[in-house]
Every structure is written in C-alpha cells, then in structure tokens.
C-alpha cells in the first residue's frame, strides 16, 4: 500500500517539478519511470500478465456478445451481416407471458429461500450454541455440513427418491402419521414445487449456513450470560436478550448481501427436478435463458434475458452496499 502511494507521490513530484522546469532533463519523466520500473519488475510482470490476457479473453471478451441482444442474431452470419433490431428483443421479452411467469417463479423461490434460509440457520445456530456437550455438538455440526458438499445432481437424486410415490420415505412417513390418505406425487404437482425447493435448500445448506453465526457467537462476552443468570433470566430470555443481539450485525449484513442476490435462485435444483407437470412453477430466469438459447436457438432473446439479469443484479448489489454503509456497517466489498 504505502509503497505504491509513495511511488504515485514521487510521480506527481516529478511531473510538478518538470513542469516548473527546475528538474534537469536527465531526470526520468512519468512514462519512462514507469517503463523502467516495468523492466526492473519483469519477473512479476511475467507472473501476472499472462493471466491478465486470460482474464481479458474469458471474462471481458464475452461482454462483446451482449451486442447479440440488439440483433436478430443468426449464428451462420458474420458480425457485419447481422440485422440490428435495437431494443426489440427486450420489448418482446417483457411482453412475453412466459417471461413474466419466469420472473414470478424466480422472485417467489428467492423470497421463500431467503425467509426459510435465515430463519432455520439462525435457529439452528442458537440451538447448537445451547448444547453443553462439546463433543456431541461437534458431531452434529460435522454431520450437518455433509449435504452442502455433495453435488446438486446427487441431492436431486436423493430428493426425487425421497418424494417418489413408490416407497419414497416422505410419503411413507406422512402415511404412517395419518397426515395423508394416499401417496402424493409431490414433483408432479406444480404448486408444491416452491415449497419443495425451499425445504431442499434448507436440507442442503442449513448446517453450513450456521458457521458464520457460530463464529459470531464466540465473540459474545460470557460474563453477560453469568450476569443475566444471576439476575434470574431464564433460557429463552438469555437467548432473546443476549444471544440474538450479539449476532444481529452479522444477520443484518448477510441479509443485505442476500438482497443483492435476489435474482440468483440457483439453477441446478430447478433444472434437475423440473419436469413437464411442474414446469409452470419450476422454470426460473436461468432456465429461461438456457431454453431460449440452447434448445430453441434464439440466441438474441437469451442474451437479452441474461443482460437483464446481470444489470438488475449489479444495481441490487450496489444498492445493498449503499444500504450497508448507511447503516454504519463495513462496506461489503
């Protein structure tokens, strides 16, 4: 940090002095100083510049593809031959009932994941914190991380098996408890899909999501608990008045970050568990982009939807960052 600032200060100095003409011409000017330092640091340059080229090719060049959204893109034609259509693809997209349905699904699943995700992770973290047997607590934690590491393909296979009508455990348990009279085809009914996604997401990630709260809980001063106990506070009162306020800053920050990702419902579970009967509820923005692009070959509309998603996400992210700053938290990035 200080090194570069020193260098910049030096550069400014050189410029100022040369403009006044007090410096002999032999002294290096800004550009040649930069070049000579570049040569001197050539090893560092060789160690990083190839990756900058890689970065340019794989991350910045695809942005050029955004032009496709303003064309009536035909893969066989060259760039010069493409027909330019302005905002027509966007107009078509926003007027498309399918797109509106996809947006509804995306936002609904986001919201469900948001509420369920936070509620379960915070509750589990607090309950884990209340366990007194340290070894047992560690064991529960280790087990609870497991589903986070397995792929969505495996998780989707598990979910589909558990929900199946021929011997799926969910139907078996519900039948045994008398909650349903006959097996339910869970994945075949559209209106169940959002709920299934919410529960699946919790099953997969709740344990993992407690980590950050448990880390925050270690910063609470134990003497607070002792003082509360002496004052006669019960278990729930201690949780309500000490534990929860102790992790509030973390909760607030994570919520803000997640608000910035409201269009990122994920893609894999919806795609893997989506099928004909639940399509009207399972198709989200990412699947829309994939279907229009790869299945229907309508590259232009697919790219337009992708641009829409990226732009909204960036706006939300900066908005969230601004919000975090205003609330006196550290910036998120």
């Amino acid at each position, binding site marked *: 940090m*200080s090194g570069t600032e020193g260098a910049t200060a030096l550069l400014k100095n050189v410029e100022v002095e040369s403009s006044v003409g007090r410096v002999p011409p032999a002294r290096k000017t800004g550009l040649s100083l930069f070049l000579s330092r570049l040569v001197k640091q050539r090893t560092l340059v060789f160690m990083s510049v190839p990756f*900058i080229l890689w970065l340019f*090719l794989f991350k910045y060049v695809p942005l050029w593809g955004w032009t496709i959204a303003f064309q009536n893109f035909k893969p066989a034609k060259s760039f010069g031959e493409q027909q330019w259509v302005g905002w027509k693809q966007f107009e078509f997209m926003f007027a498309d009932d399918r797109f509106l349905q996809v947006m509804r699904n995306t936002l609904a699943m986001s919201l469900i994941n948001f509420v369920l995700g936070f509620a379960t992770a915070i509750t589990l973290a607090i309950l884990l914190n209340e366990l007194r047997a340290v070894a047992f607590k560690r064991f529960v934690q280790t087990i609870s991380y497991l589903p986070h590491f397995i792929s969505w393909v495996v998780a989707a296979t598990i979910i589909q098996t558990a929900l199946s009508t021929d011997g799926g455990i969910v139907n078996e348990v519900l039948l045994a408890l008398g909650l349903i009279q006959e097996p339910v085809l869970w994945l075949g009914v559209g209106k169940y899909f959002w709920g299934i996604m919410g529960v699946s997401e919790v099953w997969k990630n709740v344990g993992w999501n407690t980590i950050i709260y448990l880390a925050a809980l270690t910063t609470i001063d134990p003497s607070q608990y002792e003082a509360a106990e002496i004052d006669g506070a*019960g278990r729930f009162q201690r949780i309500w008045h000490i534990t929860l306020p102790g992790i509030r800053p973390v909760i607030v920050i994570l919520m803000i970050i997640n608000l910035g990702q409201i269009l990122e419902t994920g893609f894999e579970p919806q795609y893997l568990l989506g099928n004909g009967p639940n399509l009207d509820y399972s198709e989200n923005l990412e699947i829309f982009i994939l279907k229009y692009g*790869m299945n229907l070959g309508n590259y232009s509309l697919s790219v337009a939807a992708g641009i829409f998603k990226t732009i909204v996400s960036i706006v939300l992210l900066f908005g969230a960052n601004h919000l975090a700053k205003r609330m006196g938290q550290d910036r998120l990035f």
Partner: protein
Amino acid sequence: MAKTNQPNYKIKLSVGDRAFDIANYTFMILLMIVTVYPFVNMLAVSLNDGMDSVKGGIHIWPRVLTWDNYEYVFKQATILHATFISISRTVLGTLISTFCSAMVAYTISRPDFVLRKFVTLAFVLTMYFNGGLIPNFLLMRELDLLGSFWVYIVPGIVGVFNIIVIRSFIEQLPDGILESARIDGAGEFTTFMRVVLPLTMPVLATTSLFTAVYHWNSWFDVFLYNSSHIELSTLQYELMKMLQNSNATGTSGSMDGMGGTASFVTPTSVRATMTIVASLPIIMVYPFLQRYFVKGMTLGGVKG
C-alpha cells in the same frame, strides 16, 4: 472455530431448563437422521439385489446383500471412463488453478509492483458481471474448446475469489521472511516458489479443497459443451442423465431388468449405486478436512 463461549451453568438446573435440553437433544438427533438417512438408504439399495429392491421396504439395511450393482456399474465402459475424466479434471484443475491463483495473488501482494492496482482491479471487476451463457458458449466454440477436455480446465485457470483470499493471507505474513529471501539474492519467482508457496500452504489447502469439490461436482459444463462427446462425460453428468430419464417416466425406477450379469440390476439400483459412487469421495474426505472448509468460509465471510 475454537471454543464457543458456552455459558457456564453451575447453578442447579430448573425443570424448564431440563425440558429445553431434552427437546434440544431430541431435535439434534432428528436433524442428524434427516441428514444422513437418504445416504444410508441409497447405500442399502445399492447393496441390495436389484429385483428384490423392487418389492420395496429397503430402508437402512440391505435385505439380499450383493455386490452385483457395483459390479454392473464398473463393468460399464462409459462409467469407468467417466470416473477417469472426473478424477482427471479434479486433480489437474485443482493443481493448475491453485498454483496460478497463488502466483497472481503473490504479484498483487507486492506493494511496489507497478501493475498492482491495474491487475487487482481487472480481476475484482469480473466478480460483478458475467458475459452470460450464450456469449460464453460462442467463445468456447471460437476457441475450438468444444469437444475438448480442456474446456473443463481453461475457463477456470484462476479463481478471482481464491486470489483475494490468498493475497490477504500473504499480506499477513511477517515482512522479514520475504525480505530475508530477497537479501539472499532470490528473485521474485524463486521467492514465490521457495518461500511463499510453502508458507501459504494452510490457505492453499482451503482454496484447493473448494476448487476440488467444485470440479468433482460439476456437470453443467459437460452438458453445455460436451454433451455429444461421451468420451468426455463425467460421473456427475452420467448420474444426471439417469435422473433425467426417471424424471421423464415419472417414477423413481421401473421393473425392467438390465441384463448383462448373472442376476438382474434395475435402473433404481444402478442409480443408487451411482449416487454412492459420485458422493463417496466427498463423504470420506470432508469430515477430516472440515476445519479447512470452515476456515475458508469464515475467511471469505463478513466480519461482524
């Protein structure tokens, strides 16, 4: 994740406290059952005779114990080859990405490096946008990466998030160590290889674990770029195809036997076997490495 500041209850427990504890422990045991049962169930089905499984009722223990399903799965040339591709991309992808990310991280941790700000900004900016599906696809096609193993490796040569995590670790190293290497006449690359790499091993363990899990679990790039190249398929993608097939039929399996071996295997039992094969490496490894994972999580997370 050291100790939690668990309140030290020395005062005699009240009835309410005890009831809370009992409820809490019961809840935790239920949670563990819900988490583990699906895997145990898959394992039981994978070890049970295929035709017998069709009768249902397999829960945590196989009824007719057999290795036939595993034998069948590993006699399939496709699956055997997919396992090889999965392992290759995991090992190669992780090694390359970890080494390259560490190298970039080192250069931008040097305070006097002229391009430091430029390189950092160029990388960090890419965290906020993405060309998107079609532009990326067209790029891979232009680069002739479709139908190639390298399409799994090259787009992930460096990870921006990993670079940032590794850089902050390098910046926390005591200054004297790097200085003394330089005084001894070591160049930047030698310093990186001989001094920085060994010292950053703890953080590299973390980032490489996340990268390895990513590679092992990915199927979307196979689907997108190599779906017509069976010789480049991975385990996860093969399992995904089985899942899609049973989605199409609407049940978790059918009665049709698959011949080939002396006894019959069914789609259900093959799928269960594939599920175990695809998740076993992770199940076996993660409990021992979880402290690295957790470290990565808290490193990358927000400090409250």
